């Protein structure tokens, strides 16, 4: 069945069934993924899939349902489920379906050329990278992950207020995890590269970076546990930022789940920190020109020179405060209800290089990787205690890798303890970005 026709028919049936307003959201994804193991294709995956959701108002309450099976039976499943889901809600806060913004920034998130380059050429590049990594150093024993993934996603949002929006994006991600061994010491190092422009991928550069990332972890030593000045590398900072994003949500603040409640206009971080929302950032792979409700997205400062400018709002949270939405309604996919999230959130870069930041530290720790973020962080209290990998810094120079560590602190204090920010920005595929930071101190425990 043609999607546009299905959407239209479903909207008509929804209104007929007694819904006052309705929205149909559709998403379709095609992807290709290949994993190599010692020169051979270990796994090869392709997919074509998608789904559709109905969000509609029944007696002033918003119900949700979705399906991945697009047939006539599913229309009645959607309509009956949305009704049941609306009726069970206690809330009736007058949220409605959005009629549309005045204008939407024209921005291209799709590079057609990436799709026209054949799969064999992409596999060949991955093979070359794997070969170069394995030949790079005799201490490299294998790669436990050598993966290339490419995807194209299309989304469309249509509603009973005649709004019709669509979005198309694609991208390619290479993920490598190199296993190195010297004597009895076994270490891994992971490396991620993403792009929309295949021609920017250079096998030599990628192989060198991936190999060096793992090799650097050999020769670990122990240092005494204690409080140290920390350089948090860009990729590790971006993952920490992504984990603590919920503190910026107006919904969480309204429900007493964020200590940023009532802090707009106040100083919440060091003067060095400016945090931006950038739906069209050229270095990020994600982004969109409309949010989960169809509101046009914009470039915004969330924290400017340490002062909180705004929380992230959707139309419901904004209405509660009598303000305008900031365009941060978020739909994870057709499977979810509306939540709140930024579109590319990043810490604005400073002027000095990471080396210059390291040179400022007489004794400290450079953290290159954080893990256990989903369990070792409390976004309500801001407390975190997470596993970390990194290096000892002595006399302004990077020294030996340190045995497995944990770093612990409180994110709200951390924001106030940022002393310097490096000049080079790194984005994760999910759109969180950061340069490296010099932080006054964190508690470090060494195994």
């Amino acid at each position, binding site marked *: 069945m043609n999607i546009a026709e299905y959407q239209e028919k479903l909207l008509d049936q929804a209104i007929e069934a007694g819904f006052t307003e309705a929205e149909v959201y559709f998403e379709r994804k095609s992807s290709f993924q290949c994993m190599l*193991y010692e020169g*051979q*294709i*270990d*796994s*090869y*995956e*392709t*997919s*074509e*899939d998608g*789904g559709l959701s109905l969000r509609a108002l029944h007696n002033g309450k918003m*119900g*949700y*349902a*979705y*399906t*991945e*099976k697009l047939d006539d039976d599913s229309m009645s*499943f959607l309509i009956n*489920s949305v009704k*049941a*889901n*609306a*009726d*069970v*809600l*206690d*809330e009736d806060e007058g949220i409605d379906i959005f009629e549309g913004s005045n204008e939407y920034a024209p921005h291209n998130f799709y590079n057609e050329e990436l799709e026209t380059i054949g799969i064999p050429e992409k596999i060949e590049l991955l093979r070359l990278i794997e070969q170069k990594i394995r030949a790079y150093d005799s201490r490299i024993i*294998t790669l*436990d992950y050598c993966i290339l993934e490419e995807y194209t996603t299309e989304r469309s949002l249509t509603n009973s207020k005649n709004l019709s929006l669509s979005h198309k994006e694609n991208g390619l991600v290479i993920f490598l995890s190199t*296993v190195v061994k010297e004597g009895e010491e076994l270490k*891994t190092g992971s490396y991620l590269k993403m792009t929309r422009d295949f021609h920017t991928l250079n096998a030599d550069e990628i192989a060198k970076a991936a190999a060096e990332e793992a090799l650097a972890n050999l020769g670990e030593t122990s240092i*005494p*546990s204690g409080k140290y000045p920390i350089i948090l590398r860009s990729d590790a900072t971006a993952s920490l930022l992504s984990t603590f994003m919920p503190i910026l949500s107006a919904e969480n603040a309204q*429900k*007493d*789940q964020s*200590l940023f409640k009532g802090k707009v206009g106040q100083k919440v971080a060091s003067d060095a920190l400016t945090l931006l929302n950038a739906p069209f950032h050229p270095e990020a792979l994600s982004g969109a020109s409309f949010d989960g409700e169809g509101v046009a997205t914009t470039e915004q400062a969330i924290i400017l020179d340490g002062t909180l400018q705004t929380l992230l709002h959707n139309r419901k949270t904004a209405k509660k405060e009598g303000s305008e939405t900031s365009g941060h309604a978020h739909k994870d996919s057709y499977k*979810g*209800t509306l939540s709140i999230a930024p579109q590319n959130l990043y810490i604005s870069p400073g002027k000095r290089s990471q080396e210059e930041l390291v040179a400022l530290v007489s004794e400290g720790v450079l953290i290159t990787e954080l*893990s*256990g973020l*989903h*369990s*070792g962080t*409390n976004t*309500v*209290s801001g*407390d975190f*205690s*997470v*596993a970390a990998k990194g290096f000892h810094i002595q006399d302004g120079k990077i020294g030996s890798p340190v045995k*497995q560590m*944990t770093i*612990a602190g409180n994110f709200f204090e951390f924001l106030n303890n940022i002393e310097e920010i490096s000049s080079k920005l790194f984005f994760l595929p999910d759109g969180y970005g950061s340069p490296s930071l010099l932080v006054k101190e964190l*508690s470090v*425990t*060494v*195994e």
Partner: protein
Amino acid sequence: MIKQSVIENVLEAALSTGGDFSEVFIEDKFVNECALQSGKIEQSISGRDFGIGIRIFSGLQSIYTYTNDFSEEGLLAAAKRAALAINGGATGTIQPLKKEIITPIHNIIILPNSVEHARKATVMRQANDIARNYDERISQVKVRYLDEEQHVLIANSEGKFVEDTRIHSRLVIQATASEGKEMQTGFYGPGAHAGFEFIENLNLEHYAGEAARIAVTMLHADECPSGKFPVIIDNEFGGVIFHEACGHGLEATAVAKNNSVFANRLGEKVAPDIVTYIDDGTLPNEWGSLNIDDEGEKTRKNILIENGILKGYMIDKFNARRMNAEPTGSSRRQSYRFNPTSRMTNTYIAPGTSTPDEIITSTEYGIYAKYMGGGQVNPSTGDYNFAVMEAYIVKDGKIDRPVRGATLIGNGAKTLQLVDRVGNNLAHGAGMCGSISGSLPVNVGQPMIRVSEMTVGGTKGE
């Protein structure tokens, strides 16, 4: 769900370029999810996941494709597109499909889809009230209700044709306690491979009460000291430590390519005599249980470590080829979107002889981890980390005072060697495990155990 003749054609088309095994996995799943916050039911969503995964093996190469185009043309096109990844070779043949009837080992009494939303909401409100009324410092309670009814059909070129239905129900309670600037949370999420009877029979006083009690207890807990201490880990969800520290390293996903510290060590002593570690997908109605795995193999009780000796691994059909071994009914996938691989079901340390009281009184100074949070492991190196949700200092054989912000780090193979007490109070806890074939319901379990030395990372410093 899809005609048998169509499935046969798809299995055949998948072998058209020389593959030696093909498989079709059809999934039709209904889910309901409902969330309560601030005392109100504020989100409710239902959905239907439907799709088909097609898998082809050619020697040690595995090809996977999935789609939710269920037309015969769509499925044949997907199978042929996947087959293109294999170079040449003669067309393989398929065995005639022979329908297998399974005897369900998990009794389901009330199908969740037959229950009105209002009845589900009633249980959620009860849980909310219990947590709210626990203490005036409870400032927020979130309750999440989930159910799913998953129908699967698995057929392969070896003639397998089997169908199954899996029912999952879960209630997750999160309480926040606040006082002044302090905020702490507590969490409990019981789940089962069972229908709505599981939800209605839940001891809400216990689960919601505990979530609230943890939040309140942690509100004024000291910061956890860091350093190396004996650590006592309580039963039930405490088993997450061995799930991370050993379980993942015993999955064929890691073992087949020697990317595990436990690879090639069958028959070796890897733990003290008191440690027996088991993965059992047949435990009736447990959260991680299944009648058949996602390759259609019957689940079973797999002894992984017996009295300290490494006895076996969890093996799926594909990795079995690389390992020259038999599959163990351990192949799982989150949905048709995932190529299945070896995963855990209900994994636990078998009970020992120590009483919890003996374990605590014999500890001079250490950490008692009453409730664990989540964790993760790097299977190649065995390095793991996880968070403790509720921890105490043990001093002179007594539980002294609560501490917060504790993280445990270490190496799985080494930690396993340091287990010096195994209690007699085995219990299981429900969790979600994320790995390459997606996020899956698993149980972790153990009696109370003690590890003679672990690295504890805390906020307080030494």
